[in-house]
């Protein structure tokens, strides 16, 4: 079922990844590939293991069995900062940023580059300003993160990831707190970054329609195992959706676009 994108190369490769916690199997024999310059969605029912899989890729959790390769090397081989320069991860609820200001949060993204003792250079400063501009928060630099609305805060965290300047983004439901307009804005931004700058992006998503609309590839998990994998058109079909979610669904095609839309039958 592995479909490496030959043109852009492969960022992550999972081989037979499994995880068992207190006799409960969370993940079993997951073998998947995540290409560069593409946005890949991880979907599945609640408790299907999609967030856990993302955390394994981000090295937040160690896989019980199998291999997790980044750039053809086991992720455990990277030292902390080297890995952070390659892979950026944003948890589902990153919090309110202690009492840092927006600019300080975004500047935190530069840590993998300057390290604990290195100088914070003008180049670093420029990266931070660029990231603030990319998430449309130029005027918010001095505001404490805690005083921002949910959408602004989410954009600030994305700004940190952009400033981190890594080659791969792992995002856990980055749009969960956002209204529909902001969802579209953030996902468009992510898609643009991926396609323009060649970033590998992996997003855990609930909304199968948003995934179909903004992602190039969808990996679906069911009860810790890979249920389906492929481009949206191959996933968003009544048969596959029934396999993933266990309920009957219909698929329409949005008028004027080539995007499938799923709805409950």
């Amino acid at each position, binding site marked *: 079922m592995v479909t490496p994108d030959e043109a852009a190369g492969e960022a992550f490769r999972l081989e037979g990844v499994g995880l068992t916690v207190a006799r409960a199997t969370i993940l079993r024999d997951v073998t998947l590939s995540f290409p560069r310059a593409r946005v890949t969605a991880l979907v599945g029912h609640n408790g299907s293991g999609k967030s856990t899989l993302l955390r394994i890729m981000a090295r*937040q959790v160690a896989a019980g069995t199998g291999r997790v390769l980044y750039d053809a090397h086991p992720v455990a081989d990277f030292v902390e900062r080297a890995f952070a320069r390659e892979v950026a991860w*944003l948890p589902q609820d990153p919090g309110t*940023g202690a*009492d840092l200001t927006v600019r300080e949060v975004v500047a935190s993204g530069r840590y993998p580059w300057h390290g604990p003792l290195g100088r914070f250079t003008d180049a670093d400063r420029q990266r931070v300003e660029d990231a603030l501009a990319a998430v449309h928060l130029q005027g918010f630099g001095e505001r404490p993160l*805690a005083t921002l609305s949910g959408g602004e805060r989410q954009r600030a965290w994305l700004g940190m990831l952009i400033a981190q300047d890594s080659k791969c983004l792992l995002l856990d439901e980055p749009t969960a707190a956002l209204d529909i307009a902001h969802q579209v804005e953030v996902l468009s931004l992510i898609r643009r970054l991926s396609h323009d700058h060649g970033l590998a992006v992996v997003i855990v998503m609930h909304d199968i329609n948003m995934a179909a609309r903004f992602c190039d590839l969808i990996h679906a998990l069911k009860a810790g195992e890979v249920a389906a994998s492929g481009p949206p058109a191959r996933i968003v079909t009544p048969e596959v959706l029934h396999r993933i979610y266990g309920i009957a669904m219909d698929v329409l095609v949005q008028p004027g676009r080539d995007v499938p839309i799923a709805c409950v039958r």
Partner: protein
Amino acid sequence: MTWGMTRRLGPILVLALGIALLLWLLVAAPLSAQAAPGYDPVKMRLYHSTLPRLATAVIAGFALSLAGALFQQVLRNPLASPTTLGISAGAHLALVVATLFFPAHLGLGRDAVALLGSALVAGLIMALGARRGFSPLSLVLSGLVVSLWCGALAAILAYLNDRSMVSLFIWGAGSLSMQSWQIPLALGWKVGLLALCCLPLLRPLSLMDLGDGAAASLGVRLTRIRLAALAVAVALSALVTSAVGVIGFIGLVAPVLARLLGARGSPVFLLTSGLIGAALLLVTDTAIQLAAGQFSDLLPTGAITAVFGSPLLLVLLPRLKIRHRVIGGAVAPPQRMPRFALVLAALPLMVVVAVLLGRDAGGAWVMGTEMAALRLPRVMTALAAGAMLAVAGVLLQRLTGNEMASPEVLGISAGATLGLAASLFVLASPGLPVQLGFAGAGACAVLAVILLATRRTALAPERVLLAGIALGALVDALSGLLAATGDPRALALLRWMSGSTYNAAPGSAMLLCAAAVALALPALAARRWLDLLPLGPALAGALGVPVGRARLGLFALAGALSAVATLGIGPLSFVGLMAPHLAREAGLRRALPQTVGAALIGAALMVGADWLGRVLLFPWQIPAGLVAALMGAPFLIFLLFRRGRT
């Protein structure tokens, strides 16, 4: 009989048999003794001392455990108890204050005084808890801090009245010795009445297990039921403290055992807790009476239950669900230059005052350099200790993401105290270097224990904090036990615990300053880690911070800083808590400026406290640690209130 029932009944049977055996050992001999004609001391002791003592143990154990179970039920907090919430300590402090300042009025009003103290602490803890959503940890954390503070203040008040202190310690350590049925009878009907008050609360409390929303929709008046249950619990523990003193941790242990035995539902849980508590205290006290026959010295029951009970907090830690809390809520004001200038100017100003301004033998104020050579070592010691505690406080608060963290709370100071106690009681008359060596070893041992005990949970900050405070409670119990025996060496321990700079010599002061610089530098170098770690371990790790190693190293650094500072200034200053917050108030939010600012503020606070202590009651000297602590506690309370509001 099913396996489950066997498992539940087994421990009960063992307990019952144990009680029977111990009671038999205690009572059989006097009962079977030949009745002597006329005055019979054996029978008199049995009927008017041993039996009322056993009855008191049963009543007090029942009351405290019922109170603990009520607290746990209402607050949904498996760590709540009269001891961990500071209720008992509040009552004790109130009684000490009354004994020292209004001795003539104490006779009738004991219960009232104890109730007042308990209610004040309870009101405070609940008000704080309500503002933080009754989060189990913050509740117990603030309860234990208040408890330690009350205990320390009571100890220091006793120290300042050293020749009458033993009586105060006996109450603090909870002695159950009886000479009549007066106490058990008086306590018995009050506890019985309060237990009856629980009956109408049983059904609503059961419904509240469903959750507040569900209970409210079924017609339960949540606030009223909660308040009533808390009032009963507070009254129960206050009455016990008033009658026999502080009996530590029974109210925590019994409900926990009740739960482990599978007591479900409010009525069963409350009753089982009460009965187990009664049995536990009965067993403990019987064993103590039997043992006391061997040693013939006073073994206060309350301190002994605390010594065995406080480690239970450590055992309970894994049962608590803890997630990383991120500092937040209140927004620090932007950097303001005047305040920052104040921070910079405060220390030199304070040092000049502390070195030059003093009083002469007649009490008149004198400004001059004559005494500078005597004052400088003390000022330098205070300065170095204050700065180190402040830096340790910054490290701990940033590591744990918890604004309550401080060296005092971590238990390092408690370890140093224990080491000093060991040196005093193991060696005949240890010199100053030996005492300091023992104290240092104690501090390091506690640090090692905390690091090892929390290793499996990957140094989860809240656990480290609670582990530290549990150790602090243990040390508190042990030193209370020592002090209540009236041994004059306990005085030396108390003196050191009060945090005096008196022993500062030029050499040691220089050494302390050098240590402060040497230990503060790595903290400054780790400024980027300290900036990122408050974001939480997951995010900091994702940004490339080696979280495990960074935490281990910084915890060790904080431990070293507090150990060295504790050697200089004693264990109880709260400067490590205050200084980081004041630095934030001055607008210093990032790790580097906050660390530097906190160090300056901490140093200035400690120098100021030392100076005040030297001149206020001249020629008597109040230890600097005590002065700082007296300022620190209200600050702590203020902090909790302000934090909660946002």
